[in-house]
């Protein structure tokens, strides 16, 4: 597969000759593309196409399980994050993740946001307080929870919990934020709040958003990458891909012929 990099702007992530294996089974084949800084890239494709697998490579989530194997290189700025010597804890400071289901920890709202900050070694109470407040404001959750920061986070609604997870992820100032179908379990109103939030956040950080909701990809993303069976079928500006897809498969998928 040839290298695709037709972005107009500064490049943040560079994926080169990348393969991924679950045991002996190859899941991602020969990926070559780059990602523009401070924008939203949507990963789309039918289920089983490997879009979630790819998203989980950027913070090396696959390392949690035995027998997973990477081949090739993924650069974030100038660091090859697949380098075995890389410190995963540092990498995950740089690359945050928001999951499909809300994953509020069984602690207070404040402690949830402070979780990552404390790991970074921030102990100063006022600093913690300021950064928690800032993260909650950036995640558009502050007004809803400011009076009950010490209450259990698991009592919040699903949409609020998901925004809490976003706040928790941005509290540590990541450069890249990965959304793994993060609105799939939410109602339309919560979904649209989170979409607005993604657009707002993309002014300051690079977002990679896995979604099976094509309208969502069209609404929020600047670029779209279409994956099928672990291969990149098409990669282009979203408005171009959705109006004028070059590949027959992309056309079929966008027209809803398989899903």
């Amino acid at each position, binding site marked *: 597969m040839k290298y695709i990099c037709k972005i107009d702007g500064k490049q943040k992530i560079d994926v080169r000759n990348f393969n991924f294996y679950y045991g002996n089974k190859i899941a991602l084949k020969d990926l070559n593309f780059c990602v523009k800084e401070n924008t939203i890239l949507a990963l789309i494709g039918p289920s089983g196409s490997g879009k979630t697998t790819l998203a989980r490579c950027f913070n090396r989530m696959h390392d949690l399980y035995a027998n997973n194997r990477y081949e090739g290189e993924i650069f974030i700025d100038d660091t090859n994050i697949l380098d075995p010597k890389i410190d995963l804890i540092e990498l995950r400071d740089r690359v945050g993740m928001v999951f499909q289901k809300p*994953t509020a920890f*069984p602690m207070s709202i404040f402690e949830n946001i402070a979780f*990552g900050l404390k790991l970074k070694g921030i102990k100063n109470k006022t600093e913690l307080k300021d950064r928690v407040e800032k993260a909650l404001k950036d995640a558009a959750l502050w007004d809803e929870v400011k009076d009950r920061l010490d209450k259990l986070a698991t009592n919040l609604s699903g949409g609020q919990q998901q925004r809490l997870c976003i706040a928790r992820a941005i509290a540590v100032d990541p450069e890249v934020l990965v959304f793994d179908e993060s609105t799939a379990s939410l109602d339309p109103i919560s979904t649209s709040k989170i979409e607005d939030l993604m657009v707002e956040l993309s002014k300051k950080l690079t977002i990679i958003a896995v979604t099976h909701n094509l309208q969502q990809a069209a609404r929020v993303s600047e670029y779209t990458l279409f994956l099928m069976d672990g291969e990149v079928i098409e990669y282009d500006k979203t408005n171009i891909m959705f109006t004028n897809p070059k590949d027959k498969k992309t056309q079929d998928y966008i027209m809803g012929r398989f899903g």
Partner: protein
Amino acid sequence: MRKRKIKNYIGLSISTISAFIGLFFLFWIIVSLIEKGFHYINWSVFTQNAVSPGDEGGGLKFAIFGQLEVVGLASLLGIPTGILGGIYLSEYGKDSFLSNIIRNVSDAMTSIPSIIIGIFVYALVVVPMGGFSVIAGSIALALLMIPIVISSIDNILKLVPNELREAAYALGAPKYIVIFKVVAKEAIVGIVSVILLAISRILGETAPLLFTSFNSNFESYKLNKPIATLTVTMYDYAMGPYDSWHHLAWAAAIILTFSVLLFNIASRLFSYWRFSR
């Protein structure tokens, strides 16, 4: 058709009747225990020690506190050990071949005759130490506890959704923080219920104490000396010839039954709370 209906009727009746026979026996035990033993419970049972054989009165103070000491020490040894072992199976070993062997073995260990554990500790602790002791009794009970705790903690931690672990890792948390701050916190109610259940299981154990903490007439709570426990005292008194001993044994039976039930019910309330939250 009629034959089938009759068969149905007979089968269901036999099941119901046997169920009621079983239930009857079981409630009979509780009722007769309370009926025959309750009036031997009085304040002096808790505040006095045995008087000379054959005299009325006296109490079980030493045995009660001895029991508390042995069970308490056993819990201190067994619970952290079992929790860590369970953490290993659920968080590190997962589905590896050896972990599954450990799972099966520790599961099987919960059904090993407890008297065998007593003999094992006798050979490994009592003989080298040169005598029966509190510590030997506690080790025996701890060995009974560990497999129970390991299996239950393993099962309880497995119920914690994996997304929660991943979310913590994604924030750059090291494994021990993920385990203690997130996984254990999510499972805390279940963990408490396991602890209570494990204590209720060893609280009534007698056989493993016969050759380890043994029994004693001299009130001493030293770790390297034999000690009286409620269960062994109850056994000795019941098998003894004096009515006054039998009365104390009834009192011991009541105290024991109700404290075991108390821990068991508390454990259930905790796990009920876990599921209804």
